[in-house]
């Protein structure tokens, strides 16, 4: 056990986490040159493209240190985005140390800070590493200052490296050996293994990545999940190098995988504790949480005939993504689809993109919404995940919305516009601190404002320099109303949104005028209205089309005109019928893609 080091890497997107991981693996000979694919840990195509890690993976490395001893270094990868903070915390809980990788040319960013705090809370030893020192813009002194100032970690011994060139890699490995504590654990105690991650494999079923804290586990052992009590027979254990390699056993201090013939990913929840059914631990490891979706949206196939295909695709995605929820939903305007729950906006984006890319689906996604707590006059409290389902105002005593605490890091030049933005989004300032050229803003913000367009706006007012991290704080009562859109007098259920009363009129006008531009003129006047209950807050009129005729039908040749009419008809078929009005898909998409063309 003295030769084991369990560590992860904390870094902001683009600060070089994956490149560094590649280098460490390569240095320790985990993969041959031929097998060495750049950024091996990010195994999904999408991750490679977006440059983010979604599923935590791991690599067991053998490193012969300068002291002549061979150490077993377990690199536990962590997801690098705000939506996955729970997964990050479980990954960190499995480690004794973490490399804090900071881009020496850019300094500290919000997610780094959040993840680093998570590490410190769990008594993980943080080893600062300044990456990209080969860049001309690298300013290690400044980065060192920021680490000390912002995070409060001693950075005097920060290691300078360049994952790209390989400079300083050995120093990083030496620091892991020297500074990260060896795991402590009792191999004789009852088994306690923390599930760091789990995923579905088509051949063997669910694979669980675990950190064994106490005890030992061998194939044929009967294991038990402490949160659910479910029992399974352990079939296989092993480690990732990052290739999977079978082992005879996993012991306290080690990181490896378990295969136990499990079919349902939900059975193996991240953060749960595995013990032996025959000799169970007295209590589970701390920190386990059931994760609940925070953001909901309706997903509809553009072609209504692809409903079954969409369901199959979602089911396949869920095999590997237990946090994805969905249930059938019917919209008058969009037909049959699914209400899907996501951990956050990025998670939603990823699911949407995977559906479109891997499953070739054409989708209409309704505006993302948060989960509201609605207290009815009867005293009952219900959760609303779809604005269209909000009960009549007459029955509602109060509506509570989720509030998040957002930590924003940004260069001081943009403080003004960012504060204005936060205030506009009903934010309440909690704290503001200057760290050299960087400013740390902490705001309590209603989450519905954040899912609406906050990210985009923040990016644009800070020219992309602001970074954001957030966590759920509480539910708070607010003066919220449901804003409906009516086309030709008919409510378009898919376009309903819940907004704060103060911004309802503005938003109603904005949506109505946008719809007016997007709905083609019809054979009759069409009214586009925004309403709160029966109160109309905005109205626009789409004037009737005067004519739709082909002027000349050239003598004998009807083929071209016929094609033109066929094309027109085809276009209509792709429209969604609301009452008498034909609304093109693009209109939904553009309205739902809030604000981005402003």
């Amino acid at each position, binding site marked *: 056990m003295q030769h084991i080091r369990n560590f992860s890497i904390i870094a902001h997107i683009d600060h070089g986490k994956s490149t560094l991981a590649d280098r460490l693996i390569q240095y320790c000979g985990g993969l041959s040159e031929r097998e060495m694919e750049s950024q091996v840990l990010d195994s999904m195509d999408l991750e490679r493209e977006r440059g983010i890690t979604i599923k935590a993976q791991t690599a067991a490395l053998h490193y012969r240190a300068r002291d002549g001893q061979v150490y077993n270094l377990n690199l536990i990868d962590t997801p690098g985005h705000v939506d996955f903070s729970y997964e990050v915390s479980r990954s960190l809980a499995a480690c004794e140390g973490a490399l804090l990788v900071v881009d020496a040319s850019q300094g500290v960013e919000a997610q780094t800070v959040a993840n680093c705090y998570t590490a410190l809370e769990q008594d993980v030893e943080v080893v600062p590493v300044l990456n990209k020192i080969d860049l001309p813009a690298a300013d290690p002194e400044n980065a060192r200052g920021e680490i000390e100032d912002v995070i409060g970690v001693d950075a005097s011994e920060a290691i300078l490296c360049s994952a790209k060139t390989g400079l300083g890699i050995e120093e990083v490995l030496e620091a892991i050996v020297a500074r990260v504590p060896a795991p402590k654990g009792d191999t004789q105690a009852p088994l306690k293994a923390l599930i760091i991650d789990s995923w579905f494999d088509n051949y063997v079923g669910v694979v669980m990545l675990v950190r064994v804290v106490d005890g030992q586990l061998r194939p044929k052992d009967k294991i038990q999940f402490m949160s659910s009590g479910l029992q399974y027979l352990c079939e296989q254990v092993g480690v990732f190098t990052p290739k999977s390699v079978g082992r005879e056993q996993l012991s306290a201090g080690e990181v490896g995988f378990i295969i136990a013939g499990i079919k349902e990913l939900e059975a193996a929840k991240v953060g749960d504790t595995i013990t032996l059914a025959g000799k169970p631990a007295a209590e589970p490891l701390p920190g386990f949480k059931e994760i609940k979706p925070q953001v909901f949206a309706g997903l509809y196939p553009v072609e209504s005939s692809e409903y079954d295909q969409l369901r199959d695709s979602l089911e396949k995605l869920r095999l590997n993504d237990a946090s994805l929820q969905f249930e059938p939903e019917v919209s008058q305007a969009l037909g049959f689809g699914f209400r899907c729950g996501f951990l956050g906006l990025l998670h939603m984006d990823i699911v949407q993109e995977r559906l479109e890319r891997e499953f070739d689906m054409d989708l209409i996604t309704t505006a993302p919404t948060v989960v509201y707590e609605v207290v009815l006059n009867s005293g009952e409290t219900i959760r609303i995940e779809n604005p269209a389902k909000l009960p009549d105002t007459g029955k509602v005593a109060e509506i509570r919305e989720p509030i998040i605490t957002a930590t924003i890091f940004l260069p001081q030049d943009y403080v003004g516009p960012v504060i204005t933005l936060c205030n506009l989004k009903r934010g309440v300032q909690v704290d503001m601190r200057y760290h050299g050229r960087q400013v740390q803003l902490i705001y309590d913000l209603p989450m519905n404002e954040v899912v609406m367009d906050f990210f985009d706006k923040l990016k644009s007012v800070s020219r992309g320099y602001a970074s954001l991290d957030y966590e759920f704080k509480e539910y708070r009562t607010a003066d919220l109303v449901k804003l409906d859109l009516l086309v030709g007098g008919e409510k378009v259920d898919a376009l309903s949104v819940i907004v704060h009363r103060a911004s309802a009129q503005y938003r109603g006008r904005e949506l109505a005028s946008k719809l007016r531009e997007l709905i083609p*003129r019809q*054979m009759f006047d069409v009214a586009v209205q925004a309403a709160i209950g029966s109160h109309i807050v905005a109205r626009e009129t789409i*004037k009737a*089309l*005067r*004519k*739709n*005729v*082909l*002027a*000349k*039908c*050239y*003598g*004998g*040749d*009807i083929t*071209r*005109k*016929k094609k033109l*009419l*066929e094309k*027109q*008809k085809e276009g*209509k*078929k792709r429209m969604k019928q609301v009452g008498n009005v034909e609304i093109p898909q693009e209109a939904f998409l553009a309205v739902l893609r809030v604000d981005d063309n402003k």
Partner: protein
Amino acid sequence: MNERRIIPIAPAGRGLDSPLPLPQRPQLSAPPPLALYVHFPWCVRKCPYCDFNSHTVRGEGSPLPEAEWLQAVVADLEASLPQVWGRRVHSIFIGGGTPSLLSAAGLDTLLTAIRMRLPLDPLAEITLEANPGTVEAARFRDYRAAGINRLSLGIQSFDDAMLGRLGRIHGGDEARRAIEIAQASFERVNLDLMYALPEQSLAQALADLETALAFGTGHLSCYHLTMEPNTPFGHSPPPVPDEDAAADMQDAIESRLAAAGFEHYETSAFARPNQHSRHNLNYWSFGDYLGIGPGAHGKLSSHEGIVREMRHKHPARYLEGAAKGDFVQERREVGVEELPFEFMMNTLRLTGGFQTSLFASRTGLPLAAVAAELKQAQARGLLEVGSDFIRPTERGRHFLNDLLQLFLKD
């Protein structure tokens, strides 16, 4: 061709709404009237809005291959005769391109060749499309002598600025003179006008119409300028009046022409009493036509069904094939499922629509085949179904595309 066929009647008890199984092929009781179309594919210059099969003569000043064209077209006709054997031709239309580039002698040769091969109705309408240029106008009298009895002049506008924007080679004065010369030789002259031209105002559009009316001609065609794909205008559209302004022009033109005693008998065609274009009416009543010359389209019915064909489109290809008797680029039978739409696409352009019995006699299908579509069109206020006629309502005429789409098979 003389045999009569009986149109099957829908089995008793079948509601009008339930789709009727269509016969394998149309059951025509008698062939429809026949017209002849001859295509002359060359122009001095191609106009930027035009998507017809027209070509400029290659090389400046090189002569038109008139003799080759004549020879080929006659051979084309010769080769087509078996398809129309014994059928009388009611009208001839020589279109283009710019067929007024033909010499009078050439035209005489063509019409003589046609008369020798086809039984031509003594009162047949024989129309030539002509460009209102000085050179052409000089030939109008000889065209009349050759047997042309109706002239269709592509005036488009009398406004020099508009004509320039349209890329026309004639001016307003030339147009006026050409009309006068044409009227001296022809009793029946059609003027083609276009509106919604680049930067045109309502007053300008009406001024063109007034000028045209002043000549007292019996037929006018008023077309909304449209941007066709694969034309220079289609690629970079000029600043034309918006939909509403164009609709205002159309309304104003229609009411002015009604006041002047013109019947608005088809989407874009207006005629004084008995001045209707018989050749075009044949298209619009789903009659038959033989089309010869490069790119010409034909539609011919027989007891075997209804066939559409197109001649080789490119003039060079057409002339080249002529020697080997190879004229047809495309030939296909119109399926029974397409016939209702094709019939409606033509007949519903007519203000008066069609006599109910015409559907069965021209398509060889029972009207019950479109019962559901007719009902839907009626319900949407686009179609009027009388005891013995079916015609578009005013709304149906304005939204003809929406009306016709109801008859398109999915």
